[in-house]
């Protein structure tokens, strides 16, 4: 929080101070005591769990096997409230801070552009502000939205992202104060946590039905921390419905599943999977994970041990795709030495 203050104007510092808004890292989404918010390893370091300095990042985030590139997601702006000017100012401040504190200190680091979640035009302005800097590889949006992301009013964001070769990441959570389910508010963390994947499904449905991938054929969308094991049944249903009702959306010219596999990726955390290897192998037949998944450590979050069990069922080529090449293709705005990327850390 303190780190961010110098990047805000006097007025917004005064505003934060007056309203006692502490930017302590999405405590609704990641309550510090929740087991999923902070892994055991991350808890061994002093709070806050999310690295708020480059030194912390170097010290805490495991650098297993020579990560060539790490994508940083600072989620602070996902929780902007309804004041649209605040949302824009916060996003700009976050990006300035990430640039100075992280990107400028290590050429392996890349980051997602925080944008206003309130006004698409402001989001576009922020994208344009950062686009020439090749270290920004993605536009970060919350998976939770008031109107589904495919809605026309959001298209300028996708246009800007496509124009600049930026991926668009839909990250779990965001938009506090909004009901996480179609039928209303939940009262337990268990329900709220699981709502992310249902919302991600609705967002995918929207992106396809609204023709986003027809209008922006080079666009890549990443579902970050929304799971993926739900994808096969959704696509079966979606493909079947399209065959009957395509006439309502005649710009959707191909099977929804074709759009999704071409344009959408999902990160590997959380990997909520069955225990039995046989069931995992069946899942691998149903979902083309070698095409779909991009590795994410999701530091400092902890969603269990599904990923190693999935990787154990893949061959070397499959593991390579999931761990390196898919992310590299996603975030290939720039690669200083042509080496593969690895997706990584979330930093509220």
């Amino acid at each position, binding site marked *: 929080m303190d780190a961010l203050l110098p990047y805000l104007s006097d007025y917004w510092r005064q505003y934060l101070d007056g309203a006692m808004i502490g930017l302590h890292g999405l405590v609704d989404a990641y309550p510090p005591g929740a087991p999923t918010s902070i892994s055991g390893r991350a808890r061994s370091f002093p709070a806050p769990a999310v690295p708020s300095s480059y030194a912390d990042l170097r010290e805490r985030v495991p650098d297993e096997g020579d990560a060539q590139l790490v994508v940083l997601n600072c989620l602070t702006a996902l929780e902007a409230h309804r004041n649209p000017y605040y949302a824009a100012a916060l996003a700009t401040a976050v990006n300035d801070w990430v640039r100075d504190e992280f990107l400028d200190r290590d050429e392996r680091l890349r980051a997602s552009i925080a944008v206003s979640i309130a006004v698409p035009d402001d989001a576009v302005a922020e994208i344009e502000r950062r686009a020439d800097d090749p270290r920004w590889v993605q536009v970060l949006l919350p998976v939770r*939205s008031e109107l*589904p992301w495919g809605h026309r009013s959001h298209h300028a964001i996708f246009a800007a992202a496509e124009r600049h070769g930026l991926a668009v990441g839909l990250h779990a959570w965001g938009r506090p104060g909004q009901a996480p389910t179609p039928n*209303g508010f939940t009262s337990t963390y268990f329900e709220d946590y*699981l709502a992310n994947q249902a919302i991600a499904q609705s967002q995918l449905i929207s992106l396809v*039905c609204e023709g986003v991938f027809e209008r922006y054929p080079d666009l890549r969308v990443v579902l970050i921390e929304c799971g993926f094991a739900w994808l096969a049944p*959704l696509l079966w249903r979606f493909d079947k419905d399209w065959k*009957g009702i395509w006439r*309502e959306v005649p710009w959707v010219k191909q099977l929804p599943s074709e759009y999704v596999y071409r344009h959408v990726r999902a990160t590997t955390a959380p990997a*909520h999977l069955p225990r039995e290897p046989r069931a995992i192998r069946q899942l691998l037949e149903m979902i083309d994970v070698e095409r779909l998944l991009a590795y994410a450590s999701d530091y400092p979050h902890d*969603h269990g041990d599904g990923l190693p069990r999935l990787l154990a069922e893949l061959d070397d080529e499959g593991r390579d795709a999931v761990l390196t090449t898919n992310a590299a293709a996603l975030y290939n705005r720039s690669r200083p030495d042509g080496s593969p990327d690895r997706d990584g850390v979330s930093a509220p």
Partner: protein
Amino acid sequence: MTGAVDLRARERTESQRLVRLVDSDVHAQPMPATLMPYLSVGTRRYLERYGRRTHNDMHAYPRARGAGTRLDAWPAKPGTPPGGDPELLRAQLLDEWGVDYAVLQVLNALDCYDPDHIAVELPRAINDWLAEHWLDFDDRLRAAIVVPHEYAHLAVQEIERRAPDPRFVAVLMPANAQELLGSQRYWPIYEAASAHRLPIMFHTGGFIRNLGAGPPSYYIASHVNTSPAMQTQLVSMVATGLFRALTNVRIVVTECGVSWVTALRWAMDSAWELMGIDHPRLEQRPSEYVHDHVWFTTQPVEEPAQPHHLLYAIEQAELADRLLFATDYPHWDFDSPAQALPRAVDGKLRAAIMYGNALELFGLPAVRSRPSHAPVP
């Protein structure tokens, strides 16, 4: 004539027949005028003057294909909608496919967004109409009791009224209501149903606000969205401890698809392993709650490009004894009893899905008398 096979015709010559096909989701459709005679004068006048003041999902999302119906299911009589003519339903569904039992679900009051004096009358009218014009008409027909679910005490009264009639085999609830379905607000209804061994069928539709990701723009999107919406409802039921509190409750997820149950169970179990200790209502593994208490009608059955993947999903989600075949006649996404399930679903599994599970769940006799009007082969 599609579907019916010679074997079925032969069985009809016997005075009794073994049940081979139960259709767990069929829609009878009253026009507003049909129900008027069953309503009080005041309610009749109110409705004639103002109509129901409720959000109608069909206005927000016009059903782009066939206005939501099979185009060949429109009765010849003008002004009668699909599902409005018992004779046509008998011919086009029961006789044509050899349906032994069909469970009628009337959706006209599924949103229950009426003041209590109207909310109490509409379901009563529907149930009276069902008994008089449908259940008396053909002994293969059964029905789900329509209740004013947003008024739990009134809903319980209606359940008590109908439960003695064994032709009412379930209680109808919507998939979308004013609160999440696990809310204790609705528990008295579940409790009353369970006391009479009536399963509660949560049918797609109801009071739809499209919170969460926000309202989609198209009917196709809202249609596909019924799956993730029901996923959040199941999570709600697990999280609030419904299955822990009402140990004999049985619910039927109706017209929401089936394959998504796999990933939802894995996710709930995973979350339970990670944080269950802090959620005292989750005493058991969530997938166990789901298996113990939840059934699913098949329609609209997912049709994976590789049909055996459906078998994977059934295995992964332990659905072999939980699936109930349904056609959803007369809606456009009707599942044919002959062709909706892939050939890979065969033998004992097919028998369980086509009739075995339903006989057990609804307490229906496995042998029934041949109806006197059945066509002579």
